[in-house]
């Protein structure tokens, strides 16, 4: 088995009010120096070693992420 990580983030042009709310909370905590926060999703998949990259990208692009609003990165971890 292999571990695959898929990180999904809202596209830069999509307003991320959840990230903004976190940034606001950091200010209220008294933390200085955080200019911006964007919130995404992190998936960890345990997959067969034989599962090919095309299938992984299908998993990411057709279900885990919505290409209209999100970008994603697939990485195999050793």
């Amino acid at each position: 088995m292999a571990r695959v990580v898929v990180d999904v983030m809202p596209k830069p042009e999509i307003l991320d009010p959840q990230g903004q709310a976190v940034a606001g909370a950091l200010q209220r905590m008294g933390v200085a120096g955080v200019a911006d926060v964007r919130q995404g999703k992190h998936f960890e998949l345990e997959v067969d070693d034989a599962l090919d990259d095309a299938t992984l990208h299908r998993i990411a692009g057709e279900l885990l992420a919505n290409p209209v609003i999100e970008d994603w990165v697939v990485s195999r971890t050793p």
Partner: protein
Amino acid sequence: MRIGVITFPGTLDDVDAARAVRYAGAESVALWHADRDLEGVDAVVVPGGFSYGDYLRAGAIASIAPIMTEVVAAAGRGMPVLGICNGFQILCEAGLLPGALVRNAGLHFVCRDQRLRVETSDTAWTGDIEAGSEILVPVKNAEGRYVADAATLAELEDTGRVVFRYVGGNPNGALADIAGISSADGRVVGLMPHPEHAVDTLTGPSVDGLALFTSVLRASATT
């Protein structure tokens, strides 16, 4: 006319949608998410709620439920489909309508009576409503902000596919005040507000929503 109303795990508004169908004078047919059978209905309503708990993204998991394979195929043959709220999200996730619905700009769950301008009568679900007129129906969601890329937005505007627009205040930051859109052939319509909650003055702010359900009777009769 027989109109199917789909129930997914977590659907809330199927009972009201079925009632609206009956008030309009049609027979409502309960459809189940796990079936691959539309039971010969003439149109389908995908109602609101929190299908699959909104896990992953609102509408994402419902969009690949077995019944949706049949809905996508039937829509391709011109069957009228109406997606309300979570149903709109599902139709976007299923690729029947362009764009996506994301978290409201103000982060709040917005629940209020909302005025909408009906921009076109040229869809299967708005034929009984005069273009440019206003209706009052409830809106209730946390992820109702319509977004699409600039090219898609321009195409929707240029081809008259923006069907409903928020009037008197945009509740969620939706681009161009868009509350609902249609497919290119006008047979598939999705909107975030709830016409099925505005069919009886006992429980709704108006009976304006009924016109969507009566429209489809005529749309079906003319095809």
